[in-house]
């Protein structure tokens, strides 16, 4: 058969084609069998499922080298999704799971998805922590306080983001969520689509605590605020960099919600006018707190073949230079709890501290309630999804 061009004929003979197909399939089959053989001994491999940052080479490469092991890491953008993956049987895949504080004690541990840590081995490391996270820290233990469920590292306050050249920080702090939700702000902000965070902040903006069951009347008020938030937004995105870019190029002036991590990279990159703001006044039932702060809990997955490297990794993360690398991983810069140790603090310069708003960090954290599970989440999420679908 003559070949006029690539598209018109297929020059291989049937026999050659069959031979190649068989050898390729056999190769693939053999390759897929290999991990099974290597399964029994997992000293040389470790898999981690984490928020962006822990999956960066800056954090993982030195570990790979020192422990001579393969580390596979996958980033996540949703705590509930990660919890679901573990529920669906991914406990066989992962060795380390890194989620926001409340999930460990509220769902992962009660559902037997994570393994408690050896207290004797890990408790001394808590000496390094900032005063807010001193031992025994609530979110690192089981409800009864008996088990250590994981280690805390990165943390941060969450409120709104704003370009302070357009709206002053003080004005936004005083006027709170109402300013961004006012008609004057229509089309000037984006919504950062980490669903549970949008929901929490809208409940707070509506005047209630998201961490208790809401009444029908309160849910009605929440719906009004949520629909306004979504309808007035310039765009909705789960890409914090797209939002930071919008604030830099002037297409938007702010974001609802937003945490320090969503602007820290842009701030370090010469845009100190982008800032995370926590309003001064919140609902009375939250003690006047208007923001929500998160701390990540890094735990051992209840993997039937847990890699022995997983515990090593948790210890490794508490070394001063690793703590700094985690804090300054590519793409997102965050304070870490280990900054309570002078050896860790000494590794930061002024610009780096300014990237994550160190000047107001303690004050901002004091204006935040701890992230927790939202009891009315199902109903609130349905309303949120409908508002997005029906966006005017």
């Amino acid at each position, binding site marked *: 058969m003559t070949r*006029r*061009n*690539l*598209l*018109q004929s297929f020059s291989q003979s049937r026999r050659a084609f069959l031979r190649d197909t068989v050898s390729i399939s056999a190769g693939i089959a053999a390759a897929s069998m290999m991990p099974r053989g290597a399964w029994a001994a997992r000293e040389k491999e470790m898999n981690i499922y984490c928020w962006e940052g822990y999956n960066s080479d800056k954090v993982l490469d030195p570990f790979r080298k020192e422990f001579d092991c393969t580390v596979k890491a996958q980033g996540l953008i*949703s705590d*509930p*999704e990660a*919890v*679901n993956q573990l*529920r*669906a049987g991914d406990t066989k895949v992962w060795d380390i799971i890194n989620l926001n504080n409340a999930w460990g004690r509220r769902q992962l541990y009660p559902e037997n998805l994570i393994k408690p840590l050896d207290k004797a081995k890990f408790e001394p490391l808590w000496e390094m922590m900032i005063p807010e996270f001193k031992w025994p820290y609530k979110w690192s233990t089981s409800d009864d306080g008996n088990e250590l469920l994981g280690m805390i590292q990165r943390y941060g306050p969450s409120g709104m983001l704003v370009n302070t050249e357009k709206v002053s920080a003080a004005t936004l702090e005083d006027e709170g969520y109402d300013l961004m939700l006012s008609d004057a702000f229509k089309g000037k902000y*984006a919504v950062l*689509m980490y*669903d*549970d965070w949008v929901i929490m902040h809208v409940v707070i903006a509506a005047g209630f605590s998201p961490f208790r069951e809401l009444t029908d009347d309160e849910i009605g008020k929440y719906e009004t605020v949520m629909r306004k938030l979504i309808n007035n937004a*310039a*765009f*909705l*995105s*789960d*890409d914090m960099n*797209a939002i930071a*870019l*919008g604030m*830099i*190029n*002037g*297409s938007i002036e702010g974001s609802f919600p937003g945490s320090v991590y969503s602007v820290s990279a842009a701030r370090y990159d010469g845009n100190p006018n982008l800032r995370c703001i926590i309003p001064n006044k919140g609902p009375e039932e939250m003690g006047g707190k208007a923001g929500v702060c998160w701390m990540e809990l890094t735990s051992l997955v209840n993997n039937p073949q847990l890699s022995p490297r997983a515990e090593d990794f948790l210890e490794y993360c508490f070394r001063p230079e690793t703590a700094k690398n985690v804090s300054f991983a590519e793409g997102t810069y965050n304070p870490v709890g280990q900054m309570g140790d002078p050896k860790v603090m000494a590794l930061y310069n002024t610009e780096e501290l300014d990237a994550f708003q160190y000047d107001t960090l303690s004050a901002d954290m004091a204006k935040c309630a701890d992230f927790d599970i939202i009891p009315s989440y*199902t109903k609130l*999420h*349905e309303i949120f*999804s*409908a508002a*997005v*679908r*029906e*966006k005017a």
Partner: protein
Amino acid sequence: MTDASVRISHVAAGHSRVSRAEPWQVRLGTALSKPGFLAALPVGILLLAGFVGPLALVFLFAFMPPQTFSVLQAPTLANFRTIFSDSYYLSFLASLQLAASTVAILLVICYPLAIAMVRVFTRKAGILALVLAAPLFVADNLRLMGWMLFLVKGGVVSGTMQTYLGIPVDSMLYTFSATLFGLVYINLPMMLFPMILGVSMVPAQMREAAFDLGASRWQVMKEVDIPLAMPGIMIGALITFILAAGAITEAKVLGGTAVVMIAQDIQKEFTFAQNWPKGSALSMLMIVLAGSLALAMFKRVDLDAIFGRKG
């Protein structure tokens, strides 16, 4: 039934007449020990486990009580009731509208391109095909991210217009049109390549004969070119439609969620909402909807006639 399938069924009937005298166990045994069946068994099992299995699981989950994570419960229609009483029709409509528009735009873009590649470039078409296929080696979301930087305010387009021409251009993102643009861009090869195969199936002699018999260019296109290239066109349209209807990244990255496509609703149910049964019910509805549309399309266009199997 086509002639070919009629012939096949006659042959099968012949066999069954011969073996009817034997008890069914023997006939089953003979059928099971046939080399054809045995050879197809491994692939059959693989398909059953890898393709039908997950679908069956989604099907089962669709009838489980909301917010649960096991398929071993009493079945219920609660998920479907919630879906029909809520505004999910908006996402279904948006997906179908975007998919249909994508197919329509791609038909117009790809047909001339396919003709050019098969009839005009002939020998060089291979290189052109490689160039057109090259983006497929890069992940969709990376390419879309590239377009975002291209179209965003202060990006390549607006920055260039502003700097060199002094024309201020706002962001071209976060609209229905931006989503549609993304879908057209991502799915272009999916329409183009089957269409090229379709166009290359049109024998040159057939066109020449039509011209000799006095047909105009329009008539040749309408009566010869398009009908003979139809298998490629149909397959391209179908693949593109299904892919576009199930798309998600285009609407998120370029569209800024200005339009919610059904895949996004499904993804939300499996992730943030932690409601697998509702996500499964939405998936089943989408499968049924897309499947019946595809079937209806194939029914309207007689594939056997297109493939020349009809006498």
